[in-house]
C-alpha cells in the first residue's frame, strides 16, 4: 500500500486518512464508471485517501468483478454500457451480495434518487459532485471506524450518548439537548472519526435530500458544539474545511 504524507493530500482527504493510522486494513472499493477520465480521477483521488480501488468500465464486467471479489463499497454509475447501473445492483442483490452501493448519476434529482434506492442502492450522489462529498459518503458506507448500528451507547472520549434514555453526558455531567440536536449528535457519533458533510447531515438528521445552500447546518452544528464543549478543554467536534464535520477523540 502506498504511504502518503498528509501534507500531500487535499485537506479533507488528509483528515479522513489520518483515521487510518494504525493497523486498520485499507478499505477496498469497486468503481463501475464508463467515463475513463472520471474513473482515472476517482481512482487517483481514492488512492491518495488510502483506499484501494478496482475499476470496471461497463456493467457486465462490473457485475463480474463485484460477484467474484469482496469489496467494502461499490460506486456504480447509473448509465453504463452493456448493462445499466440499476440492473447491476439488482443482479448483485439477487446473488446475495449485500455490499453497500453508492449510485452516481448524471440524471440527478429527487425522483432518480428514489428509484436508485429502491433498486437496492444504499446512497445516491448526483453529478456533478465534490470529491470530498463522495469520499465522506464512501467512508461512512464502508463504516470502518464508527460505532456499530446496534450499540445502545455511543462513546467518543468522555462524551456518552445513550440512545435508549436519550441522555447525553460528558465526563459524567449531563448535557441537555433539543431533540434535533440529539439526533445530530447521534449521527455524528455513529460516524465518529469519519467526515460527514452538510448534505449528509441534512439527509440523515432532517430527512431532506438537497444541498443546503447556506450556512444553515453550520449554525446547528455550532450550537451543538457550544453545548458539548462549553465547559471542557478538549474539543471533540471538528470542522473539516471544504468537506464537513467530524467528531473524534484526539486524546
Amino acid at each position, binding site marked *: 500500500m502506498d504511504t502518503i504524507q498528509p501534507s500531500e493530500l487535499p485537506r479533507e482527504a488528509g483528515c479522513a486518512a489520518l483515521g487510518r493510522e494504525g493497523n486498520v486494513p485499507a478499505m477496498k472499493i469497486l468503481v463501475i464508471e464508463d467515463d475513463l477520465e472520471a474513473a482515472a480521477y476517482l481512482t487517483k483521488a481514492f488512492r491518495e485517501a488510502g483506499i484501494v480501488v478496482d475499476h470496471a468500465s461497463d456493467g457486465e464486467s462490473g457485475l463480474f468483478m463485484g460477484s467474484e471479489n469482496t469489496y467494502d463499497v461499490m460506486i456504480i454509475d447509473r448509465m453504463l454500457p452493456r448493462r445499466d447501473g440499476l440492473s447491476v445492483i439488482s443482479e448483485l442483490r439477487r446473488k446475495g451480495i449485500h455490499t453497500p452501493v453508492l449510485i452516481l448519476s448524471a440524471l440527478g434529482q*429527487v425522483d432518480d434518487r428514489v428509484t436508485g434506492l429502491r433498486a437496492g442502492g444504499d446512497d445516491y450522489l448526483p453529478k456533478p*459532485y*465534490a470529491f470530498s462529498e463522495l469520499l465522506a459518503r464512501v467512508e461512512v458506507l464502508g463504516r470502518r471506524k464508527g460505532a456499530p448500528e446496534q450499540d445502545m451507547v455511543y462513546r467518543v472520549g468522555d462524551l456518552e450518548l445513550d440512545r435508549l434514555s436519550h441522555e447525553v453526558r460528558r465526563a459524567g455531567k449531563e448535557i441537555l439537548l433539543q431533540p434535533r440536536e440529539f439526533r445530530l449528535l447521534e449521527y455524528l457519533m455513529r460516524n465518529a472519526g469519519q467526515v460527514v458533510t452538510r448534505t449528509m447531515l441534512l439527509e440523515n438528521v432532517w430527512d*431532506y435530500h438537497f444541498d*443546503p445552500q447556506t*450556512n*444553515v447546518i453550520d*449554525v446547528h452544528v455550532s450550537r451543538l458544539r457550544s453545548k458539548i464543549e462549553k465547559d471542557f478543554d478538549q474539543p471533540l467536534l471538528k470542522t473539516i474545511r471544504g468537506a464537513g464535520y467530524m467528531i473524534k477523540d484526539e486524546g
Partner: protein
Amino acid sequence: MNPFRVVFKSTAVRLSALYIVLFALCAAFLVFYVTALSERILSQQTRETLEQEVTDVQRAYNRAGLNGMLRLMERRSRQPGANLYVIASPSGEILAGNVASVQAGVFDEEGWTTLPFQYERYSESGSPVPHQANAHVFVLDNGLRVLIGRDLGEPQKLRLLVRRALMVALGIMGLGALVIWFGIGRNALKRIDRMSAASTKIMAGDLSQRLPVGGSGDEFDRMSESLNAMLGRIEKLNEGLRQVSDNIAHDLKTPLTRLRNKAADALDQPSQEARRAGLEGIIAESDQLIRTFNALLMISRVEAGSVAAEMSDIDLSAIVTDSAELYEPVAEEAGMALATDIADGIVVHGNRELIGQAIFNLVDNAVKYSSDCTSEPRIAVALKRRDDGICIAVADHGPGIPADRREDVLKRFVRLDESRSKPGTGLGLSLVEAVMELHSGRLELSDTDPAREAGRGLTVTMIFPPPAA
C-alpha cells in the same frame, strides 16, 4: 409509387373496401331472401288456383257427367298459359289431355304430387319438350284418373328474372360506392400530403410554418388548427428557452471568469500557504458553480414535470415546522426573531422534497435579505387554510421588492442586488415558482407593510389549490 397502390394504402380506401364487402354480403342475402319469398308466394297461388280448378272440374263431372267435364277441360286448355289437363286409365295410360306424356307413377297416388314431376308437352316442332309441373290427381267413380297441374316454368323464370335484376342493381350500387370512395380517398390523401409537406418543413427547423387550413371547418381543418396552436406554443417556448440559455451563458461567464482569475492569482503566490488558500478559494468557487448547475437542472426537471411521479400525501404542517425549526437558529444568529403560526394537520398531495426545498428557499431569502433591517428584525412563517386554498406565507420586514420588479425576480438569475454582495445563485425564487406550478398552485409576492414609505418588507405566499372535496 404507383398511384393506385398509394390510394389503397390510405385508411379511407381500406375502410370503404371493407364496407363494400359487407354490403355485397348483405346484398347476396337479400337477393336470395327475396327470390325465395316470391317463389313461395307464387307456388301458394298456384296451389290455390289448382284447387279451384279441381273443384270446378269435379262439379262439372257431377252435373254433366264425363262429357260435361271433358267440355270444360277442353275449353280451359285452349286458353293461353293453360294448366295441364289429363284423363288417364286406371293403369296410367293417357286417354285425353293437353300433354304428350307424364312421368311414370304420377297417377298412382291421389291428391297433391309431393314433388315436381317431369312431363312432355306437344310442341310445334313435333318432338316433345320436357317440362316440370305440380299437379293434383283425383279418381272418378268409374276408375278414370284426372290430373290437373300447373307448369313450373313461369315461377322459375320469374325467380331468375328477379335475381338478375337485383344483382344488376347491386352491382351498379357497389361500383358507384367504389368510385365515390376512391374520390374521397384521393382527396383526403392529397390533404394529408400537404400536411406532411408542411410538417417536413417544420421538422427542418422552420417553426414559423403552419399546417394548411382549408376553411371548410371539417375534421382535417380542426386537426390542423389544433396542431397550429400547438406549434405556436412550441415556438413561444422555444424562444423562451433560447432567451434563458442566453442568460445562462451570460450568467455563468461571470463565475467562470472569477474562477480563472483566482487560479491565475493562486499560481502567482510565492508561499505554499497562500497558494493553498488560493486553491481552496477555487474549490469553494467551483462548489458554488456546481450548486448553480444543480439548481438549474432541478428547475428544468421540475418544469418538465418529470418529478411528478414522486407525489404522495404529505404533511405540510410538518414541513413548515421543519423549516422554521431549521432556520430559527440562523435567524437568531442574524439578530432576528422567527415567529410561527402553523395550522396543524394540513395535508396536500405533492412532492415533499420539492415543497421542503421551496419553503427553505423562502425562509432563507427572508433571513438573507432582511438581516440588515434593524427597525423590525422579525420574520413570520405561517401556514393557513384559506377559501382559495392552502397558503404558506413567509413575511419579512426588509427592503421589499417594488411592484414593478416582482415579475423579474421570478426569472432565472435575476437578482435585484446588482452588487451581488449576498451569496446565492439567483435561482431560488425560480425554483419556488416552478414547484408551485408543478403542484397546480401559484406564488404571490406582496408588501408586508404596505402603509410604509420605505422598508415595506416582502411577503411571499405559496398558494396550493384547495384539496378536492
